[in-house]
C-alpha cells in the first residue's frame, strides 16, 4: 500500500519547484508536496513535526540554498534523535565528487543529479515515487 504522507521539497528555485510538481503530476504521484524555500525554512519543519504535523515520506533536498546550505540542513536532520530516520534524497545539479562524498558522509539516502531534459526528470520522479513512496513503505 502506498504512503500518502507528504513529500518535503527543499528548493529555492520557483521554476524547479513548479517543474517538480508538474513532473510528479505527470507520474500521477498523489502525495502532497510541501515546499521549503531555503535551509532555514526546511529546519523550521523540525519544530512543526514536534507539534504534530505529519513527518514526510521523503525529503528532496537541493544543496545550493540561500542562507543555510543543503549540506548543513542534511547534517542537522541526520543529527536529530527522532527525525534522523526520515529518508533524505539529495536532488541537485552538482556532479561534484566533493558534494557527493560529503552528502554520503552525512548519511544521505540517495543522491540524484537533476537532468536538463524534462523526460529524464519525469523518470527521476517515477523512481522516487516507486522507491520511497511504495517499496520503502512496503519494506517497513
Amino acid at each position: 500500500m502506498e504512503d500518502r504522507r507528504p513529500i518535503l521539497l527543499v528548493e529555492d528555485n520557483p521554476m524547479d519547484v513548479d517543474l517538480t510538481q508538474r513532473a510528479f503530476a505527470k507520474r500521477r504521484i498523489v502525495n502532497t508536496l510541501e515546499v521549503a524555500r531555503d535551509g532555514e525554512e526546511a529546519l523550521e519543519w523540525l519544530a512543526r513535526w514536534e507539534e504534530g504535523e505529519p513527518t514526510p515520506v521523503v525529503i528532496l533536498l537541493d544543496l545550493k540554498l540561500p542562507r543555510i546550505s543543503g549540506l548543513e540542513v542534511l547534517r542537522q536532520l541526520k543529527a536529530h534523535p527522532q527525525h534522523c530516520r526520515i529518508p533524505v534524497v539529495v536532488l541537485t545539479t552538482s556532479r561534484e565528487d566533493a558534494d557527493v562524498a560529503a552528502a554520503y558522509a552525512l548519511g544521505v539516502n540517495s543522491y540524484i543529479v537533476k537532468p536538463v531534459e524534462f523526460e529524464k526528470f519525469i523518470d527521476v520522479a517515477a523512481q522516487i515515487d516507486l522507491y520511497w513512496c511504495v517499496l520503502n513503505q512496503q519494506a517497513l
Partner: protein
Amino acid sequence: MESEIDRHVLDSLESGLLWFDAERRIVDANRSAREVLGLDESHFGARFEDLGWGQTDEHGARMDAEARPLRRALDGGGETTTGVVVVDTSRRGQRWLRIRATPVACICPGRGRGAVVSFTDFTEERKTARALLESEQLFRMFGDHSMDLMWIVDPRAQKLLYMNAAYERIWGRPGAPLYEDLAHWMDGIHPEDRQRVAAASQHADASGIYQVEYRVIRPDGRLVWIRGRGFPLFDASGRMRYLAGFAEDITPARLNEALERAHRVAQERLERIVATAPGAVHSYWRDADGRGRFVFASPAIHDLLGVDGATLVARRIDLLDLVHPEDRALVDRSLRESADLGSAWLATFRVPLARGGERCVEAHSMPVREGDGGVTWHGFLIDITDRRRAEQEIRSLNVELENRVAERTAELEAKNREMEAFTYSVSHDLKAPLRGIDGYSRLLESDHAGKLDDEGRFFIATIRKATAHMGELIDDLLAYSRIERGRPRLGPVEAGPVVASVVNGAAGEIADAGIALRSQVDPGLTAVGEHDGLVLALRNLLDNAIKFTAGRPDRTIEIGARRAHGHVLFWVRDNGPGFDMRYHDRIFEIFQRLHRAEDYPGTGVGLAIVRKAVERMQGKVWAESAKGAGATFWIQLPAIETAD
C-alpha cells in the same frame, strides 16, 4: 926614502898604505891610511897593540897573532899575505880592512927589513850589508805573521823572489814549485777564473795597481774565494824593479754576502707575500694569563683594526681591546682553546671602527708555544665584512623569495578555490534555466499540442535540441575544468584492466552501432599515470572513434597498448574520414572542430580533455591520419618494467 913626487903619488892612492918595521912598529902611512885609521905622526913608532888597538877576524873572533897577515908576512919566507882584519882604532872605531902585506928587505934607510901593508877599507859597505840583512829578516818575520799572502816577483826573470807561508795555508799547496816555475801559480785557481785573473794584471790602472777576485780550489776540494791585489815596486831611479802583491782569503765575507743576499731575497719575498696576502699577516702573543699584544702586523692590518701595525706593536695593544665587546668572550675562548689543543685559531668577530661602522674579521692562525710560557699565533686576519653582507643579503633574499613563493602559492590556491566556486556556480546556475527551457518546451509540446501548428512544433523541437546541446557543452566544460584541479597522483596503472574497463563502458553502444572492435594489450604492461585520467582520456578517444565512424561502411575500431622503448603506448584507431595532418595541433585545442556539427555532433571539448589529462600525467598524445584514411590516436606514458 922617497922623493917629493913619490910622496904625492902615494898620498893620492885610494888604498891605504902602511909601512911597518920588523918589530911591527908603524914607520909611516899615506894619506888614505892616516884618514881611515885616524893616524898621525904621534902614532909612528908604536905597534897596534901598543896603541891598544885590538884585532879580530871578520866574524868578530879574536885573531891569533900568527894568523895575522902582517905577522905571517914578516915571519914567512918573504911571501905576500892577504886577509881580512877588523881593527879597533882609537879614533875611527872598528874598521873592516882587506889587507895585503908584502915583506921588503929595507923599509927605509937605516931601519932594515920590514913590510908594506896596503888595505882597502870596506867598513861602510859592511854596515850597509848588515842593515840590509836586518831589514830583510824583519820583512820575512813580518810576512810570516801576515794572514794574507804576500809575494814579490822579478818580472824580467819571471822569478818568484818571495812568498810568505800564507800561500801554503790558504792554497793548501807547497810553495816550492812556484820558486822553480812561476807558471805553477795558476795550478790552484778555478779553471773558470784563470783567464780573468791573467787579464787583471794586464788591466792595471795608471799606477800599475790591479785587483781581482777569484776562486781557488784546494787539493782537499774546498773552494776558497780570494781577493788579490798587485802593484809594482820601483827603484830609486823610478824604474820598475819588482811586482808585488797580497792575496786575501775572502771566503767568509763571500759566504756572509751570499747569506745576506739569500736573507735579503727571503725578506723581500716575505714582504711581497705579506703585502699581497689577503687581509693582514700578524703575530700575536699572549702570556699564560691571557694578556696579549701584537709582535708583528703587516700594514694591511690598519684597514681591519683601524690601527696601523707599527702603533699596534709599539703600544703593545691587545687584540681583545679592539674586538667588539659582545665578541670578546668568544675570541678569548677560541684563543684559549687553540692554545690548549695546539690547533688552528679560527674565529670570526667584529671590530668597531673609530670613524664609525664596524668590520667583520676572520682569523686563521697557528699557535706556537713559546719558552716563556706564552703562545704566539702566526697567521692571517681577513676582512669578511663584504662577504658577510653578501651572505646576509642572500639570506634576506631567500626569505623574501620564500615569502613571495608562499604569497604566490596562496594566490594560486585562492584562484583555484575561486575557479571551483565558479564551476560550481556554472553547474548549478547555468543548468537550472536550461531545465526550465526544456521542461516548459516539453510541457507546451505535450499539453498544448492542439494549439500549435507544424511550424510551432518544429520551433519547440529546435529549442529543445539546442537546450540539450547546451547541457552537453556545460557538462564537457565542467569535465574539462575538473581535470585541472588538485595535484596529479601518479602511480602504477595496469594497461590491461584500464583498456578493458573503457571498452566495457562503451560495449552497448558499440554493439548497437554494429562496430567491429578489436582490442589488443601486451600482457604485464604497467604505465606510470593516473587511473582516472587515463580512463577519461581513452574513453574520450573511443567516443571520438565511435562518433567519426558513424555512417561508414565496415565500421572498425582498434584499441590497445604495447611496450615501446621504456614507454607504454596506448592507441585508438578508427576507419573514419580521418583528417588533414595540417590541422593536427588544432584538433587538440578546446572548441576546435574540423567538421560541421550536422555531420559529426560534438562540443569540441573531447580531444582537449584528452590532451589535458595526458599532459597532467607527463605523457604525450598525438594523432596520425590522412584525409579519408582513418585516424590513429596515441598516448605515451612511462612504463614500469616488470619482472617478466
